[in-house]
């Protein structure tokens, strides 16, 4: 094959000396081993084969390296650097340097991709060509090397061993068969059954739902301490009002009164000095919706034109537990809604939670439920609302129904509606169409002697419906204008306030138009156009957008005191720890005594704009700035 090296010569010589008789013993005419027919061509072909083989290996190596070093479509689409830069630009929209950076990165990525594709194509052809050359040359070389079969070297005929061969083959086939059966059984028994067919799993799915639910519902209410009569099985259990009242679980807290009765939140904090600021957490998407809490879970919604997200934060340390995007939902229209306040308005409605799931609605009519692990349980779209500033009515819950006030601007009427949506499935349990005008208020559910009532403020009516069926109970013609403050229920009176129409108190329990019969009092004065009243049962406080705070007596509507403050903006006042917390749009909070005269008790300040009302957890306050959330408490 090649020039004999000195070593080979020596070896050959020794072999010849040592065993001169061996070749002679061979039968005449037999050539032992391979014969190379055309040595020069053989050498040449081998050289070509080796070179082209090396070339093929090298090119394949480069192509493989390329494959793993990115530069493909997926890496272009998922480039982190570009995403980060674009996020930065959203924060600093005027930064021209940043824009240049984005353009450069974008160009790099595109250039990289298309060059890579071109290079790969050329490389593949090169590799293929060199491989063909390698194979052709090698085959040619091997064809020049002839080796005759020599049966004398093979020993006994195969037929002699046939019996054994067959036996072994049979055993091998049987072995393969047994292995196959073993593998099938292993696969069948070893892999878990299909989730949706697995009875064990179905049990596990039902178990946590049952244990997590409030079990006292039927038993505790058994009359006269008698053993509880077994209740007919409900579709799904839900927390009682008492249970829910332990958590700031919705907009304006339990009962919608804005009154937190449990802890002692601090009276002073300051972001600059860090005083009483326990934690801060940034969110990617903004909004003016208020936080809803259950135990230490804080639920906050955020949205922009195209994304709608529910965030869950840990109230103890502010750590984000999860976030879930609503994703693609079948919608009647994918148009972006008109909203107030550019971006924040896409998430203006506060979520509500029942301890099992959180429910959220967004400005475009998307409504969804997520469980406490961050999985969307159901989601659909209620239709694009038409109400000027964007849908902002928050959700409220009554038993197993999520109640949605969906009042819109419909000149033909019948566009506004109330929905009762099954919390577990998302199915619409009832829908009540109505002819009222648009509203930005949130509904409350009150418990009266005559039964529960769903109170909604709309124009021009204050309306009550049966939360179980949606049937309208009564209405009072006391509202006007673009109503946004939500009603409160205090001392047997439903109180609703609006700058344009004044404040009115209506006795619940009526039927039909009760304007002339059930209105307890009606007054005018400095009243809010956005922020909702807050009440602790003794007094009602209202705060106008330009900072005028008034304390009313809910029994007769008489002004107890009034004071002009510097707290301007839209967040609603809240009552906690014997104080009224007045939060303004600049992030300031003024704290005054909840008493019969004005008395300042403290101040808080965070350095972001605030559009949401406060949330509470233990002795803490949760402040939601548009994209930053604070935990306020004594360290």
């Amino acid at each position, binding site marked *: 094959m090649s020039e004999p090296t000195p070593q080979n010569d020596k070896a050959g010589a020794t072999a*010849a000396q040592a065993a001169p008789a061996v070749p002679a013993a061979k039968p005449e005419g037999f050539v032992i081993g391979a014969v190379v*027919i055309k040595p020069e061509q053989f050498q040449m072909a081998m050289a070509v084969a080796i070179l082209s083989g090396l070339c093929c290996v090298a090119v394949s190596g480069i192509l493989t390296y390329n494959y793993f070093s990115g530069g493909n479509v997926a890496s272009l689409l998922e480039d982190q650097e570009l995403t980060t830069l674009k996020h930065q630009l959203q924060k600093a929209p005027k930064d021209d340097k940043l824009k240049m950076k984005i353009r450069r990165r974008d160009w790099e990525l595109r250039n990289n991709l298309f060059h890579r594709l071109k290079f790969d194509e050329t490389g593949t052809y090169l590799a293929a060509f060199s491989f063909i050359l390698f194979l052709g040359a090698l085959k040619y070389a091997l064809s020049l090397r002839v080796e005759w079969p020599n*049966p004398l070297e*093979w020993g006994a005929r195969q037929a002699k061993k046939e*019996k054994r061969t067959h036996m072994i*083959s049979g055993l091998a086939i049987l072995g393969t068969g047994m292995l196959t059966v073993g593998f099938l059984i292993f696969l069948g028994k070893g892999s878990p059954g299909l989730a*949706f067919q697995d009875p064990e799993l179905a049990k*596990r799915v039902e178990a946590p739902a049952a244990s997590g639910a409030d079990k006292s519902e039927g038993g505790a209410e058994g009359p006269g301490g008698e053993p509880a009569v077994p209740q007919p099985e409900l579709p799904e259990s839900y927390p009682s009002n008492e249970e829910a009242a332990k958590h700031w679980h919705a907009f304006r807290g339990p009962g919608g009164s804005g009154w937190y009765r449990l802890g002692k939140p601090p009276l002073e904090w300051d972001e600059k000095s860090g005083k009483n600021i326990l934690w801060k957490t940034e969110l990617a998407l903004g909004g003016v919706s208020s936080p809803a809490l259950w135990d230490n879970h804080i639920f906050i919604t955020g949205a922009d034109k195209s994304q709608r997200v529910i965030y869950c934060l840990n109230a103890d340390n502010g750590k984000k537990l999860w976030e879930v995007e609503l994703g693609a939902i079948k919608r009647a229209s994918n148009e972006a809604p008109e909203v107030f306040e550019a971006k924040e308005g896409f998430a203006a409605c506060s979520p509500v939670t029942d301890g099992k799931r959180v429910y959220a609605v967004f400005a475009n009519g998307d409504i969804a439920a997520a469980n406490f692990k961050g999985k*969307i349980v159901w989601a659909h779209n209620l239709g694009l609302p038409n109400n000027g500033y964007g849908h902002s009515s928050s959700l409220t819950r009554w038993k197993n129904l999520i109640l949605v006030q969906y009042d819109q601007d419909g000149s033909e009427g019948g566009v506004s509606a109330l929905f009762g949506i099954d919390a577990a499935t998302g199915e619409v349990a009832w829908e009540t169409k109505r002819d009222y005008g648009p509203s930005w208020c949130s509904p409350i559910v009150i418990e009266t002697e005559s039964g529960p009532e769903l109170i909604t403020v709309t124009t021009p009516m204050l309306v009550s419906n049966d939360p179980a069926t949606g049937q309208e109970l009564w209405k009072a013609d006391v509202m006007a204008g673009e109503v946004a403050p939500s009603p409160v229920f205090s001392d047997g009176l439903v109180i609703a306030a609006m700058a344009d129409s004044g404040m009115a108190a209506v006795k619940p329990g009526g039927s039909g138009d009760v304007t002339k019969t059930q209105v307890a009092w009606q007054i005018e004065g400095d009243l809010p156009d956005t922020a909702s009243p807050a009440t602790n049962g003794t007094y009602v406080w209202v705060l106008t957008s330009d900072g005028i705070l008034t304390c009313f007596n809910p029994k007769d509507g008489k002004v107890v005191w009034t004071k002009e403050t510097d707290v301007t903006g839209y967040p609603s006042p809240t009552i906690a720890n014997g104080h009224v917390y007045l939060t303004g749009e600049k992030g300031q909070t003024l704290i005054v005594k909840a008493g019969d005269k004005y008395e300042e008790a403290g101040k808080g300040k965070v350095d972001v704009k605030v559009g949401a009302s406060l949330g509470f957890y233990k002795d803490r306050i949760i402040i939601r700035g548009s994209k930053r959330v604070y935990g306020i408490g004594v360290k």
Partner: protein
Amino acid sequence: MARLIRFIPIFLISLLLMSWIAGASERFPPPEFEGGRELPNIQTPAPRADYMGYVDVGVLLFGLIFASWLVLKKRSKRWITGLGIFSLAYFGFFRQGCVCAIGSIGNVTQAIFDPTYSASLVILAFFFLPLAFTVFFGRSFCASVCPHGAIQDLILIKPIEIPLWLEKSLRIFAYGYLGLSVLYAAASPMYLICRYDPFIPIFRMTGSWGGFLLGFGFLGVGMFIGRPYCRFMCPYGVLLGWLGAVAKKNVEITPDACIDCRLCEHSCPYNAIIPSALDAEKTNPAVEKKRLTWAIAMVPILVAIFAWAGGQIGGALSRAHYNVTVAEDVYLRDAGLTDPVPDDNVQAFKGTGKKTEVLYAEAVAIAGRFTFGSYFFGGFMGLVIGLKLAGAAVRSKRKDYHIDAENCIACGRCYDSCSVEQLRVGSPEGDPDMKEALAAQYQKEAANS
């Protein structure tokens, strides 16, 4: 006024027309450009013309006829290889491996089981013609018409002989692959053969990393172990093998009577030569008959065991179906049993607006089909192993070297090794180059001794 009234219907009709054209989704009405404007049309480059499919069938037919002639009459390894290179170039690199006889198993199976699907004539031709030719002329399709076979035959450089017991065991995988392919195509339909074809990425020179790895793996192994895909994987090869075993004509190692010279004994890289039973050990016919009876009696038992075992894996196999995966994902997420990391599948499913009940019902139906089919798959495997065992119990008593008609892929390597053939066409020793080389070798040996 009368003129105006005349216009009203025209106006109404045009309004109707416009609304019909505009459809429901136009939020921003297309503008009326001043002075009109030619709107560019969407370019619609035509796909490969239909008649080109018939050209493919024509090439296939030509290849089959030519290959059969080469294998049975011309008996030339060189020509068989040449035709193989042509087929590799045409069906492999030019047609990029689609349409292909191996993959047509999927289409034909689906056409049988899915009444809404019908396979095109071209695909049916690709499925049928090689099988029909094999019934008459043996597996000449494998020899040089199938691009998969051709590429592996070309790549074989230094064949290593595999012991017969290993060979026979490994061949069972091809039956398993055939069974699974049919099961998947019938129950879902999914074309396993096409999806996991190792050579398609090479023919297309593009594909996934895993695909390339598989392809290069088979080629690398194929340099030393002849045609690993054909022998141990190819599901179409199983069908061809059945028909090859009963073929009217098959490869004859020798053009005349076998002189039992043994020269061809190791010439087949595919273990498809059955050696002469000359001076074989004497067997006791009674023992052999008894063994065979036992083996045949085992067949139903094996079928039953395997069918039972196969039935266990239906659910696991159905997971490969997209709907089943999604149904599981959705179920587990809804039940709060999986990680809340957003899952593309679930997001996409929610986006379709389909009800989960419908999804579950679909998934249950698919899983049911898989379970039903997997009993048959198991039974089929039991049958194969039972019959293979029975086959191993009998020995050929032919006193000549002949091909194993089921496994011979007609590559023609044994022709050149046959001494009778060499007498017919002339020994390579008659070649002047060879004479010279032999003389040199003799001189060297003489010098050594």
